[in-house]
């Protein structure tokens, strides 16, 4: 059973309220594909991923990034039940998408860097610590139904 203090929840929801899910999601997914190019293997049908510029401008990347981060938003609404929230998605990522759970950790770390670049000073060490905890738990929840 995960424990969140009131302060931790505030650090999460407070920051989340200021995040553009569309922009942030697009940026995070694009960076995943740029910084860890092997992750492009999951997106063969996304069209042009041939350069950072192409990836950043790719509409499918943007759309999918938004989708992924919207789902993250659901987790934030259900911080006390991440496992339940991600149960179906976990099965999907294992059975249909065949994504190595290591990729969830990579995306989580990238999201943190995107938030850091966006919020600069406001992304304090305390803030980062809580968010690293969150992305770690989300990655864990997504990996939970793997078999």
């Amino acid at each position, binding site marked *: 059973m995960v424990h969140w203090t009131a302060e931790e929840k505030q650090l999460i929801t407070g920051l989340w309220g200021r995040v553009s899910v569309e922009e942030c999601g697009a940026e995070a997914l694009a*960076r995943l594909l740029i910084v860890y190019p092997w992750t492009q293997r999951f997106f063969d049908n996304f069209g042009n991923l041939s350069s*950072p510029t192409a990836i950043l401008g790719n509409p499918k990347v943007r759309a999918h990034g938004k989708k992924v981060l919207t789902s993250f938003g659901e987790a934030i609404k259900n911080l006390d039940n991440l496992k339940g929230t991600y149960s179906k998605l976990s099965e999907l990522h294992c059975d249909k998408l065949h994504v190595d759970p290591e990729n969830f950790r990579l995306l989580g770390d990238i999201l943190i*860097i995107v938030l850091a670049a966006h919020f600069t000073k406001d992304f304090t060490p305390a803030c*980062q610590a809580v968010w690293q905890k969150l992305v770690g738990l989300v990655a864990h929840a997504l990996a939970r139904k793997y078999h």
Partner: protein
Amino acid sequence: MLTAEDKKLVQQIWGKLGGAEEDVGAEALWRMFHSYPPTKTYFPHFDMSPGSDQIRGHGKKVVAALGTAIKNIDNLSQALSELSNLHAYNLRVDPVNFKPRFSLQFLAQCLQVVLATRLGKEYSPEAHSAVDKFMSAVASVLAEKYR
């Protein structure tokens, strides 16, 4: 593998720190201790309060070493040879199954967060990619002599 372009980007990013290297080092360590509490086990003798002289001093050392590595980016193995011995034989910082995700990788993540908070948009996807690759290369060299 670090391309010529990667090396240039890393040197550029480092150049933008303009004398704040010490602060960057201390902040990266501080963030690492807070986001990844097990890393504190390597510093049981440290004063862990904010602004601690020991954290500042150690941050300065770490950043100086990275600076040296960047100046000798074409020969990381040799440039970091002493530190590689130290980490393997004396410090024995746990490499956690030898996958890239080990304690030094936590420092790499936190260093990137510090760079992102200071540089904002300037910490472009390309720069992010180059620094990530560089820190992986540094971690690899430091792990070379573990066994």
